[in-house]
């Protein structure tokens, strides 16, 4: 019967193709976990592509950083670590380090010194938030607003505190659906001094005060969970202003040409970098360490800034930051670290958050559903 023969033939083909795909683990592969999108793209161009060309090792990208902590816990339990290097925020690095899921690193031994010979630990300086953490970039969470929706006669917003000025700037807002940054801004804009914010936030009254401040704009706020949402809402004209990572806003303004401006003041600084999972075999570990040494040197970190407006974590990289790879504009003025952008900068206290995160997360989610 003809149909049966056709079926048998296609079956045989599928099986043959399937067998050809049943690959073993390639000896020369490395799985690197990051955030995806424009950020992964910048790493691909600045770190991965040159490294693959130089060594012949192939790098597989996994965009699982948002759930890195949970997945690493599961891998550890299952005894099957499939990741070689993971990109996380500083607070997550501290958590993973405390749980023993990330390896402690001797920064001076593993990482390359600055071109002038300054040891890595001095070159990175304060950005080394944890013994397991190899910093890459300084980014900030800051506000963008629709320039064409600024009410007539009003000055455009300049500061994070303008998000609470519901009378002056009517319209919807977008804020991150987690307590980090929102709680600090709420207290700061309610009149708490910058130095005292975390002390106040430790107390019950302080938390109540922050929630009360957030209550004033709660019914006008859309809560986002992915960095891409605020740019989308701004492009739609759905919101007047919203918080997101500064690199996203740079892309909306410079690359997409949307009518959006930035309110830099009281931007929230945070760090992002690598951790190495514990439990890698010796040959995998050797490969990762070699990659780390190359990809975090002074020139590589400066190169990344050609593709995305995040500041390199090394002091020695800052003078090397050049122009955008495609648009040819100077990147230095778009860096969160540029002194002209913000009069005031809020430095996120990752250690404080590593301790209080679980508790405040629960309270914040409960408050959201009220």
């Amino acid at each position: 019967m003809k149909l049966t023969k056709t079926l048998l033939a296609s079956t045989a083909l599928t099986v043959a193709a399937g067998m050809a795909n049943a690959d073993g683990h390639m000896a020369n592969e490395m799985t690197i976990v990051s955030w995806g999108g424009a950020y992964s793209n910048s790493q691909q161009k600045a770190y991965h592509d040159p490294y693959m060309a130089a060594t012949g090792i192939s790098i597989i990208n996994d965009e699982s950083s948002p759930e890195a902590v949970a997945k690493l816990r599961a891998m550890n339990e299952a005894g099957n670590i499939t990741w070689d290097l993971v990109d996380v925020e500083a607070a997550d690095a501290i958590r993973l380090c405390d749980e023993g899921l990330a390896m402690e690193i001797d920064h001076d031994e593993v990482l390359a010194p600055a071109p002038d010979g300054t040891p890595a630990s001095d070159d990175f300086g304060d950005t080394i938030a944890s013994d397991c953490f190899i910093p890459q970039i300084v980014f900030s969470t800051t506000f963008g607003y629709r320039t064409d929706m600024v009410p007539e006669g009003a000055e455009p917003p300049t500061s994070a505190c303008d998000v609470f000025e519901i009378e002056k700037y009517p319209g919807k807002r977008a804020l991150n659906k987690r307590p980090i940054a929102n709680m600090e801004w709420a207290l700061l804009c309610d009149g708490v001094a910058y130095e005292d914010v975390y002390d106040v936030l430790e107390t019950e009254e302080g938390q109540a005060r922050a929630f009360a401040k957030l209550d004033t704009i709660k019914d006008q706020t859309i809560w986002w969970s992915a960095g891409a949402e605020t740019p989308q809402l701004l492009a739609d004209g759905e919101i007047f202003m919203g918080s997101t990572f500064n690199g996203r806003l740079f892309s909306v303004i410079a690359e997409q040409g949307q009518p959006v401006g930035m309110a830099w003041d009281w931007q929230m600084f945070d760090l992002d970098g690598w951790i190495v999972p514990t439990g890698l075999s010796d040959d995998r570990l050797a490969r990762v360490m070699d990659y780390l040494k190359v990809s975090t040197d002074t020139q590589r970190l400066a190169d990344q800034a050609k593709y995305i407006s995040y500041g390199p974590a090394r002091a020695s990289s800052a003078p090397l930051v050049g122009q955008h790879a495609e648009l040819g504009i100077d990147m230095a003025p778009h860096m969160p670290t540029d002194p002209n952008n913000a009069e005031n900068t809020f430095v996120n206290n990752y250690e404080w958050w590593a301790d209080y995160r679980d508790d405040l997360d629960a309270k914040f989610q409960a408050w959201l559903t009220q």
Partner: protein
Amino acid sequence: MAALTPISRTPVSFYVPMVAAAGAFAGLLVGTAQGSSFIGIVVGALLMGALAFAMTQLVTAEKPVRWALTLLLAVAGFAMAGLAAGIIGALFGWFFGWFTFWLFEGRYRAYVAPYLTAGQVLWHYTFRVICGAILVFLITPILVVMPLSFNAQDFFTFTPEMLRFDPAGYSLKHYEDFFTNSDWQGALANSVKIAPMATLLSVSFGTLAAIGLSQQHVPFRRAIMAILISPMIVPLIISAAGMYFFYSRIGLQGTYMGVVLAHAALGIPFVIITVTATLVGFDNSLTRAAANMGAGPVTTFFRVQMPLILPGVISGGLFAFITSFDEVVVVLFVGSAGQKTLPWQMFTGLREQISPTILAVATILVIISIALLTVVELLRRRSERLRGMSPA
């Protein structure tokens, strides 16, 4: 359909308020879009009521009047907000022209039984409107995606250019991105490698299981059936977490075969269900007749049973294929970055960069799904025809 009831013109006191009510509803939509629902309702009701009265009482020629109304509202819409509004206005005009005369001439009565009361006639049409509204509700989200995928911008936004039907507002760049970007092409290649293999396994095991379970003498048939179709009932996230830990221990996590096996497990229930349904109409005396003439069980299966149940097998296979092709939860757990499938890539794309490339892919997938479902439907008809022909 022939007319059931003789019709006659209705009084002004009936059709003018009805048209005015519909006008109020249309006014609500337009008014809300313009910023004031209340004014929209009042203006819509008054305008449409007056127009209905004028069209039926002052002029007598139906066709020219209806064309005039369509044109009038099209021009009004165009003057208000450009080409798109003009088209919407023309649609409104066409609808209200038809609606007015439909009521005025009493045509709404023609195709319902003569003995129905006014209330029953009203319900007859209300029911149709409700059904239509449900269809619109189900299909709109899918339809909205399609024009957005031709957006010239990198956001999920109907730009002013798009609404003006300006060609500059449209582009194929997201389709181009899909076909040239290595991330998307890699994901497509993985999906194309995984889905057929998973389908093959599901179909082989599912068909065998269905045939076995349709034999009267198999013990614990119901219990076995329940276990085999459990992947369809257990929440996917539970299966996925379980598979993750199980496959990790036996070295299948993060491998091509692991993902194929996981998807096969998800696809088997569909094959079992469709094949079992086909077997209900299968005449077992055919297999006995084949055995009587000296055919072994394998020959009987391939020469007699398989051709008859083939439509069920193929439609089960298509469901298994779509399951594997659309599945995101299990592959996130069981796969590693090397097995990133299309849905996985769409999931991360949606989370990390809301790019209309996802919409372009979604449009392509919708078209593929429609094609596959058409095949299923054609096979079902063939199966019905065959069963009609088989001896009772």
